């Protein structure tokens, strides 16, 4: 009694849970531990898999992902500048396997919340005690006339890092001197809010050395975007933004930046006010939750509503939806956010398996953008959940952007911290 501590408490509490737990989870007695099936091998899915095993090694974790390797979207703009190769941002799932996670190479077609089973295209069924769904985003193909998945093979969105990223890189490389690149930015909400603007900088970084007369135009259906001030400052410092010779131009909604159609044969974009023609076009279409979320009736509108205490679906209990597909307002759709949410969900699942109430959640988001070889900027936020409104609020006084007018030294350091952020995030989710 004298040494009664938290560990004892948990032990006793979990002992007490066994009685009730057996009723709730019939599989418990037979299998080594409760089963969790994870749908999607991105940041959310991988992090959840790893942390579930870390928090409670009894749990049997199965991750279902069709791709054999993961290519990170974050740091993929750096492939466009040639700063990185696509291989340097591609990782296999061996790390997760070392943590005892079973990797199933298949695509999930649907989740059956009644039977508590995950069904794959291959026809396999994986029963679960808890399911984690982290499918990422899907595109609204019909938003821009003339643009579809097939066209996207040649006019890439490159918004899922991989083949299209390399395609886009090659198109830029083979573009004539003085050529023009157009990036079509998506409307909110979309994943990686600073992504299109960092992309512009990364392309400019390449062009500055190899095609100094090239132009990069961003057509944007919005009037404002993430880290806007910092981007404008960085662009102007590095690429003459705001001058007549600016390498980067940005056309917002007010300037007719909304693109309505594309003619792939002429490489012409029909925007609200005028037409734009370019040598290379990169269209990032509007987004919605991944396919499986729709197939499994997890969405309300474009996104999946969740209880932010646990990220459990508000539509089907026992299924936790993480990352870009979830409606995690006011967190952005970012890798770091998905990583943070995955840990909250994992802890909640472990607590439930042990008969405990979930702990209060805490979230962080950090996001780095690299505008030049020695120019990094960041945004950070620390969040808490307002339980009454189910809104994740940024803690007052905390977070925010890198300061404007920071010294070169600070900007340079942020580049190395961006690389650290990338490496550590990858390592934390699957290493």
């Amino acid at each position: 009694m004298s040494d009664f501590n938290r560990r004892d408490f948990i032990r006793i509490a979990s002992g007490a849970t066994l009685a009730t737990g057996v009723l709730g989870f019939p599989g418990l007695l037979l299998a080594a531990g409760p089963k969790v099936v994870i749908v999607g091998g991105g940041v959310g899915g991988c992090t959840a898999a790893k942390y579930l095993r870390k928090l409670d090694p009894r749990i049997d974790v199965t991750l279902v992902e069709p791709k054999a390797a993961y290519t990170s979207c974050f740091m993929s703009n750096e492939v466009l500048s040639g700063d990185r190769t696509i291989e340097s941002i591609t990782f296999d799932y061996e790390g997760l396997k070392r943590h005892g996670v079973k990797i199933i190479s298949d695509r999930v077609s649907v989740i059956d919340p009644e039977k508590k089973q995950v069904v794959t295209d291959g026809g396999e069924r994986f029963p679960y005690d808890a399911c984690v769904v982290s499918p990422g985003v899907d595109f609204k193909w019909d938003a821009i006339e003339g643009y579809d998945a097939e066209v996207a093979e040649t006019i890439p969105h490159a918004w899922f890092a991989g083949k299209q990223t390399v395609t886009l890189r090659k198109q830029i490389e083979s573009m004539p001197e003085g050529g023009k690149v157009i990036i079509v930015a998506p409307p909110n909400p979309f994943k990686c809010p600073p992504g299109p603007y960092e992309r512009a900088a990364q392309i400019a970084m390449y062009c500055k050395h190899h095609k100094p007369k090239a132009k990069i135009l961003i057509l944007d259906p919005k009037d404002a975007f993430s880290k806007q001030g910092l981007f404008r400052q960085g662009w102007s410092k590095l690429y003459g933004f705001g001058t007549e010779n600016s390498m980067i131009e940005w056309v917002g909604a007010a300037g007719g930046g909304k693109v309505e159609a594309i003619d792939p044969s002429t490489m012409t974009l029909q925007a609200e006010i005028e037409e734009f023609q370019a040598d290379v076009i990169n269209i990032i279409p509007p987004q919605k939750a991944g396919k499986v979320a729709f197939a499994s009736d997890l969405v309300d509108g474009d996104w999946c509503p969740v209880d932010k205490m646990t990220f459990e679906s508000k539509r089907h209990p026992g299924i936790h939806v993480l990352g870009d597909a979830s409606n995690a307002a006011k967190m952005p759709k970012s890798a770091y956010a998905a990583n943070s949410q995955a840990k909250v969900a994992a802890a909640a699942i472990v607590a439930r398996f042990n008969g405990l109430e979930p702990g209060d959640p805490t979230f962080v988001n950090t996001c780095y953008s690299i505008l030049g070889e020695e120019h990094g900027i960041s945004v950070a936020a620390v969040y808490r959940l307002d339980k009454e409104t189910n809104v994740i609020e940024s803690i007052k006084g905390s977070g925010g952007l890198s300061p404007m007018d920071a010294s070169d030294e600070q900007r340079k350091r942020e580049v190395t911290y961006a690389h650290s952020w990338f490496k550590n995030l990858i390592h934390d989710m699957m290493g």
Partner: protein
Amino acid sequence: MQRDNIMNKTVRNLLVAALTLLPATVLADPTAQALAFTCAGCHGTDGSSVGPSSPSIAGMDPEVFVDAMQAYKADQRNATIMDRIAKGYTDEQIKGMSWFFAKQPLLLKPQKHDPDLAKLGADLHKEYCEKCHSDGGRESDSGILAGQWMPYLEYSMTDFVEGRRAYPRKMKRKVDAVLKEHGKKAQSALIHFYGSQQ
């Protein structure tokens, strides 16, 4: 037996009191572990950073951790991002995280370094630094230096030397002395020495 009953009543009453107070007084307060998990994206899983520059915080002395976080929180330490993040935590949360990280094993990765410089650094360390950063900089109560990521050490030392970060007591004297005696090379030598350690 009667005693037990009285006791049980005491416990019950205390619990009832605690529960009735609950809704009025409790703010959402995540566990230290949950808070610490959110750091992993930059500082590595459980605080062991895989580099290249953001520092490892596993095994960090809890008071050094609190000092650092409080300094960031109060804008008293040069930061790129930590000032913004530290402001999101209460003093208790910072302390709780410090306890969490103090208990984590520090996993080090080999770093590229110049062995000759590292050798010189080892001598300089012994002469100027070992008393506080004892055990070759492994001692945690003054901040673990051994095996720390070299760019981070470089930033920290530069901040000290260029006056962007306040020296801990006595450190200035030693740094001034080593730089005066051995020149700018001393800083690199020390960093290569710490970076060389596993």
